[in-house]
């Protein structure tokens, strides 16, 4: 890429005309870095630590793709995006993929012209109430005041839920999760509703988490997953199968601990195909044979990523639930590597 930096009189000008015609995979390889869009900060999913290193569950997906393509999980440029800038950043090519707890919906897939390559977290909208309220089901919330973030799908889901159950509520509109926590703790609303993962993370920060309960009802489907632009199927495949490699690795018992010996060859032909000691799956994707091995070594398999960032051993403490492997009664399921 030819880069000419123009230092203007006022300040620096950085204008670089890049080779646009080539596919994203070639662009990423030529650049030597993956531009991955993440959120500006969501507990457990993406956040910079004190050294500026990004950590989290979504970040793990970015690192796995970078490792698969470039062999280096650190070759990622994390581009923080907000809810308002994320889709244009992807559509304009500023980022190669978006891994920002984005719900897979019809209109985003079809109308905005993106390709969701899979689901890395099945979320849903839930309710949190103080225990002293003595409520055990969302259907008992008639007349409750509800803290709700404005302008989100949660607002619409809430209206639908209360209407279909023929009960009333009074919304307390709030702008951010931070504001919601303060309002809820100050008693400005009886109920706080947002994605269940967000509720769990919020509850974990309370001084006395046990004084608050999450109600059993989940009133919406929020499949969150990484997405790429329409029209570059080769690149979409790379991201899709990098994610699938993490899922399959968990299913087959390949972890970051035992991957070294497994990569040498095992009795299970699918593991061999996955890790590249048999077959030529990497070549078909346009990657080298050890692509999946690199992806898994970046942060561990799907289960390891889950446990390390949002699982029950972390302060957030999310149970696997829907996000368990299909063999354990969850929805996490990868097509076969063959």
């Amino acid at each position, binding site marked *: 890429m030819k880069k000419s930096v123009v230092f203007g009189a006022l300040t620096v000008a950085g204008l670089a005309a890049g080779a646009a015609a080539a596919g994203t995979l070639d662009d990423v390889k030529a650049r030597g870095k993956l531009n991955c869009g993440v959120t*500006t900060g969501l507990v457990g999913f993406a956040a*910079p630590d004190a050294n500026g290193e990004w950590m989290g569950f979504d970040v793990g997906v970015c690192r796995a793709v970078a490792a698969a393509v470039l062999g280096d999980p650190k070759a990622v440029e994390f581009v923080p995006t907000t809810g*308002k800038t994320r889709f244009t950043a992807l559509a304009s090519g500023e980022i190669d993929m978006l891994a920002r707890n984005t719900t897979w919906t019809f209109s985003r897939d079809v109308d905005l012209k993106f390709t969701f390559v899979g689901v890395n977290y099945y979320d849903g909208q839930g309710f949190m109430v103080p225990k002293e309220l003595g409520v055990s089901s969302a259907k008992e919330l008639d007349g409750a005041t509800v803290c709700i973030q404005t302008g989100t799908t949660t607002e619409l889901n809430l209206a639908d839920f209360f209407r279909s159950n023929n009960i009333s509520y009074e919304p307390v509109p709030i702008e951010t999760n931070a504001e919601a926590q303060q309002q809820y703790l100050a008693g400005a609303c009886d109920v706080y509703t947002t994605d269940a993962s967000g509720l769990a993370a919020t509850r974990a920060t309370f001084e006395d988490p046990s004084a608050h309960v999450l109600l059993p009802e989940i009133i919406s489907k929020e499949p969150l997953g990484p997405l790429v632009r329409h029209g570059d199927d080769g690149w979409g495949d790379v991201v899709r199968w990098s994610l699938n490699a993490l899922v399959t690795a968990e299913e087959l018992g390949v972890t970051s601990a035992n991957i070294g010996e497994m990569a040498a060859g095992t009795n299970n032909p699918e593991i061999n195909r996955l890790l590249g000691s048999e077959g030529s799956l990497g070549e078909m994707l346009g990657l080298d044979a050890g692509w999946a091995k690199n992806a898994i070594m970046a942060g561990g398999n799907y289960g390891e990523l889950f446990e390390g960032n949002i699982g029950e051993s*972390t302060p957030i403490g999310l149970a696997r639930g829907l996000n368990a492997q299909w063999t354990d009664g969850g929805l996490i399921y990868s097509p076969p590597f063959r």
Partner: protein
Amino acid sequence: MSDVSFVRTEMLPQQEPPGSSVGIVGWARANLFDGVTNSVLTIISLILVYFVLEGLLSWTFQSVWNASSLTECREIMTATWGKTHGHACWAVINDRWLQLLYGFYPPYPAEPGVNFGENTGAWPAYFRPNLSFVLLLLAVAPVLFDKVPRKLLIVTAVYPFLMPWLMWGGSIWGPVMAAAGFGIGFLAYRLLTPVIGGLGGIIAAIALPVIWWLFLVGIVAAGLESVVSISIPEVESRKFGGFMLSILIGVVAIGCSLPIGIVLALGRQSDLMIVKTLCVGFIEFIRGVPLITLLFVASVLLNVFLPPGTQFDIILRVLIMVTLFASAYMAEVVRGGLAALPKGQYEGADSLGLNYWQAQRLIIMPQALKISIPGIVSTFIGVFKDTTLVSIIGLLDPLGLSNAIRADAAWNGIYWELFAFIAFLFFVFCFGMSRYSMYLERKLHKGH
């Protein structure tokens, strides 16, 4: 008849004023307890102040400085004071203050084999942004205070080219060649004016440097770099953040908006129709649009319009937009100053036989700018605070970082400490600017 005099013949010695009207007691009687209403008001105010201070001071000073997470903070609070309410957890600032100040700027931008890179012990951490900041102070000092040695103006002239090099890194030849553009413009004006006339000279002095900056700087700088390589490791714009980013945007916008604003204000008052229309159109358009909209244009819309694959540095885009925004406001503030000048000043300048630029430089502008100082400085302060809006387009300024820090599981749920720290930093700068403007007004007050 007697000698008895009813009039005192000698003066009484001067006496100390009664104890109740001097010192603290006297001051309090005169100012705080002057009558029943005032006494009641004083007592109520004192009670209020006491309650506020009691909460605030104990929150600020009975606090935890060393902990690795909010949970640990709360444990320490419970162990020390028996409750977690009313005590600050400054440990988050202790843990993240470097990030809040510098964002993700690497302390030692590393690239093998180049200077200012690896930590060899020779350079302190954050050497480059810190040096930029110190040089900034040196560069503005001769502009702000007339007692400072005039030689420092050299730093002022070099700074606009040195600062980008220090902050972003790369080859020295880029900034040097950019500076050379001004030399080209000057030479073109000097050499071509006798040949093709005054207007042609001005046009050449503007056109040639622009051609130079747009098309030739990159090539020449790259050529020189390949001959004599002087470069420091590059730092990408994405690494910029924290208070450093606020200061960068604020300083560039403030520094550029004043001259642009003056030009726009003069253009708006001009008799030349095209100039006037352009200036009015620009000012009214930019002032009619919220800053946040301009920032969205910079971050989102430009990406769609520019050819795919074009990389137009996000911070540069934001800098341009904030500067344009500030310039439009500045133009109106300066125009207010111009309008406040009596017409006699303009006519006086004309009667002295001064041409337009001489009149502006010697008579109009010094007075108009003096009148506008409070407005100019409050525009500066406003622009500096508006830099926090960039968090909405995903740049991690202090407010954006406070969200990112809260997203760390260790610090999730912490608010006031972060906001207090950020507010304190902003206050220091804004208060400094405000005090300077008052100093300047006093200094320039000539009593006419």
